[in-house]
């Protein structure tokens, strides 16, 4: 397994939940950057609301501007705190900003958050926002494996990413008529055994994003991956490898990894 370390994809933090039925599932956590963007959007919405309201209030209190200032100051303060708390509490953990950035606040047990949690985590912002620009909250989130700011730690909540997912469809390498790697079942089996899920999904991504990569980058990435597989994981015979391009090598490897073996044997 040490082989896998250099190409390990440490891209996202995750929360693993074990259900009472003994099933494990993972939830991808949201990083501080997209949370910041969502918050900035919410700030813009709140400011727009308050200013719109302010114009109306000043117009109503045009004879008594002092009372207008009083109403607007209090409304601004109340809306500032209540906006996130009420929306998150009653809208399943989402504000408008969070919804647009595909984020959701949940209880750290994987269940929806409760109203009191929404209030606690939002009132705790006065501490997280210290000394400026959410520095305390940001440091807390970066130093915590669950990426919680202090408000989240106290309320027992966390923010997850929730991009829409569709069930995966058929991949082109499953349609390969002939895979020369299958002629060497013992080496192919070695590849299947030694490849970590991270390595497998790296190969999958590299092939799938073929047309998004610049030709130079594609050549380099495919060469590196193919060399790595050939040297470290599954040394197929040189006479076979010499005939294959790096891309074909990876397509064959993906075929070995992702296509059912029994099926391939039948095809052969």
């Amino acid at each position: 397994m040490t082989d896998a370390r250099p190409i390990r994809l440490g891209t996202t933090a995750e929360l693993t939940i074990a259900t009472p039925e003994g099933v494990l599932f993972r939830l991808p956590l949201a990083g501080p950057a997209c949370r910041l963007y969502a918050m900035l959007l919410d700030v813009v919405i709140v400011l727009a609301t308050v200013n719109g309201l302010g114009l109306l209030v000043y117009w109503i209190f045009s004879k008594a501007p002092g009372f207008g200032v009083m109403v607007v100051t209090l409304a601004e303060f109340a809306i500032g705190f209540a906006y996130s708390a009420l929306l998150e509490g009653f809208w399943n953990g989402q504000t408008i900003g969070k919804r647009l950035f595909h984020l959701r606040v949940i209880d750290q047990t994987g269940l929806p958050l409760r109203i009191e949690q929404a209030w606690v985590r939002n009132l705790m912002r006065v501490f997280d926002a210290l000394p400026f620009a959410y520095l305390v909250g940001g440091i807390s989130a970066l130093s915590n494996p669950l990426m919680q700011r202090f408000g989240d730690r106290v309320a027992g909540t966390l923010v997850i990413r929730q991009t829409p997912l569709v069930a995966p469809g058929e991949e082109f390498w499953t349609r390969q008529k002939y895979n020369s790697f299958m002629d060497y079942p013992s080496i192919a089996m070695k590849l299947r055994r030694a490849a970590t899920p991270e390595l497998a999904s790296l190969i999958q991504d590299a092939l799938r994003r073929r047309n998004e990569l610049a030709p130079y980058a594609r050549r380099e990435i495919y060469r590196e991956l193919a060399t790595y597989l050939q040297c470290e994981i599954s040394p197929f015979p040189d006479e076979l490898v010499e005939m294959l391009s790096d891309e074909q090598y990876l397509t064959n490897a993906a075929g070995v990894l992702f296509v059912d073996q029994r099926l391939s044997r039948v095809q052969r």
Partner: protein
Amino acid sequence: MILDLERFQIQAKQRWNGLESLLAMLEGRPDHKLNPAEAEQLQELYTQAAADLNRVTHGALAPELRRYLERLVARAYAELYYIPPARFSLWQWRRWLRIFTAFPETFRRQSRYFALAVLITALGGAMGGLAVRYDPASVDLLLPADYLRDPGKRVHAEEKGERRHVNSAQIEAAFSAKLITHNIEVSLLAAALGVTFGIGTALLLFENGVLLGAVAVRYAQQGFGLFAAAWLLPHGVFEIPSMLIAGQAGFYLARLLLRRREDRDMRQSMREWLVLIAGLALMLSWAGIMEAFFSQHHEPELPYAFKLAIGGAEFVLLTVYLAAIGRRKPHVPLEAK
């Protein structure tokens, strides 16, 4: 075990789609309530999806399918295991009124943290007072604002009404809103600083105490004790206790965080903390109104004795409210039930 992924997906696709559409329907409901038929269907589809996820996790190299199933299982799990709160609507005003009895009840239940806040503030007050009394050099350091350092001028100006304007009600209104929001923010910070295991809360209370003690002694020293009492009491009898309650909430939070994770009843504790915050916000709203509209009027407009009497009456009412309103039954922790 190696799955025949393609066949597996074709067979399972229908039930995954069924679960997806059921979840989409349930998630659209605000109250998260299921009827028995839906619960049964959800339970069945959830169990199947969970079993599918287990097979994919342990028997196949299909990271995308695994992610998809994890997502499906996570959503179903949340719908199935979440216990929705009792129906609560923003428009049920009776439930909002409950805060007026819940606040003194919570205050009494957690009174030892209030006592701690009082102790720290009193220590600060004593420090500030003694420093000003015996070390005149400390005055500049402890009382940075001119009007605090040199009460004579301020009292003179206030009593002559120099600082008052023609349409003072307007200015007082704007001033009260500033006071209310500022005070609530500071109190909220004191309560939130509980996450520093109470150290931040203690420092804030101590600093507050030092300032109070120093001002009180400075004004008394120069013979303006009556003026200061009449100036500060009408709003101070609400403002100072609410700062102490903020400290109480902070220490309560600190104690909670110092407890072992298994011993915490987070749900109940969060409610208690929130009730304290809501209560002190109400108290500070009253204090802000009094400070802007009443405290700033001095003799000869308003006799000091009258202002002191109002302050005293407020104090008695507040004490009776906090000590006697609501249920007297002691709180039984959930784990003991």
